[in-house]
């Protein structure tokens, strides 16, 4: 528990300091932030479907929870009757009755 906290602390630190070149440029020219870098893009419509782009892989999956590894840490989606509607190398669509989308969980 302690170790995990430490790890996440460090991650927060790196995140604040090190923005990639592309991201800096994007911010400078006010371009949409999802154009550069491979940060995840999470889209939720209603509460029955969540689309995550730029993910690395799934870590955990059962009917109440799915954990997805991304470049900005692990995203956990909890709810009931969770299914993976579709999964490709670029995007994952999660269905079910969703109650939480947590980062670093």
């Amino acid at each position: 528990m302690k170790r995990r906290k430490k790890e996440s602390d460090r991650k927060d630190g790196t995140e604040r300091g090190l923005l990639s070149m592309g991201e800096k440029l994007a911010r400078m020219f006010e371009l949409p932030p999802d154009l550069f870098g491979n940060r995840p893009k999470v889209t939720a419509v209603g509460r029955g479907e969540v689309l995550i782009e730029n993910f690395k892989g799934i870590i955990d999956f059962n009917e109440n929870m799915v954990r997805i590894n991304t470049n900005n840490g692990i995203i956990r989606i909890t709810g009931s009757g969770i299914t993976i509607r579709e999964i490709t190398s670029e995007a994952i669509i999660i269905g079910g009755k969703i109650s939480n989308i947590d980062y670093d969980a």
Partner: protein
Amino acid sequence: MTCSRCVSGVVTLMFLVHLWNYIRGYVIIVAKGSVERFINICTRRQILLWDISRKDSDSVVMKASRRGFMMMRQAARKSGCRVHIIKKCGLPFFLHRFRKRRGFKAGLFFFAALIILFTSMIWEIEVSGCSRDVEEQIFKVLEETGVGKGRFKMGLDPKRIAADILLNVDEVAWAGVQIKGVKMTISVQEIRPRPDVVDEDEYCNLVAERDGLITKIEVLAGTLKVNEGDTVTKGQLLVSGILESQTPEFGTKYVHARGRITARTWYETKLPLMYEYTKRIRTGRTHENKYIRILGLKIGLLGNRKAFEMYDSISYDKKVTGPFNWEFPIGLTVEKLYEVQEKRVKLSDEEAEALALEKARLQLGSELSPDCRVLEEKVDILRNETGDAWLQLTLECEEDIAGVEPLGGD
């Protein structure tokens, strides 16, 4: 495979995706073991998975394409998962069941061939933009060139058909032919008749077209040769196209004589009076004959017969109209026969006269020229010694009797 840019796009595409998956065929599989690892490896190898749900603590159910399943073996070995199929879905598996049923296959091909055959024919021809008799002429031309219902579209050149119509129907100024599906639409522009142009250089006289008594004279050009109140006979010169100068030195001038010579004319007809008359009376007994029409073919149904010795028949067509006003080339023709009996009826004097008068009027009506005005109608009954009687109808009319006669020679 799907638009992964936005969720709504994915949702709208869902149906198409399902259809595509069904056509390509997919399998429902169960994976047992460290399934997360298995899914990740599959994803990395571009194997599409969908509808993944947890079955119990160590197994998940998912769907994968047929190809994907083939490529899954290595991923399963690497992750140490056991994978097996619980159901095969989709068109390829469905068709696989019928691979040994030849009749089924033949039927499928036959059906497809039939659809292709029937959609490559012309089922309907529509002509628009012209009067009825021009339409008839167009259909005649089409018939001659072999274009009609049931003709195959292949080898049919719309421009050629339009050219044929243009060449063979004089009243058509422009024709456009369009083939849309099984319907051929012919749009036509009719030539408007040119107004009559009086050719002033074409010298002519005006002569009487009928016998008559002149009541009114209006001459626009030419020398008047008759006076009001004159009786003229057919062919008599009314207005001459030769203008003689009052001083002979100037010679003669020729003109195109024009004018209206209104005259009183008489039309007459004589009809024998008939005191007997055959009347056709319907007895009330009827019979219906039915025919099925398919593409101009008429097929009689059972029970058709000539039911009566003497009958009137009335037939009408029932058409089948589909959606979008699409008329099917099939239909029913119902022919209704009414039995009649001929009966000789004795007529009274008045009735016989009325009948003859009606006939006489009809007969004269076709003789009268269109600009003729009927002034008076006179009916006489004539009898001879043997007792035969006639009805004489005389119409007194007023009309323009001037007719053009070219001035021959110089």
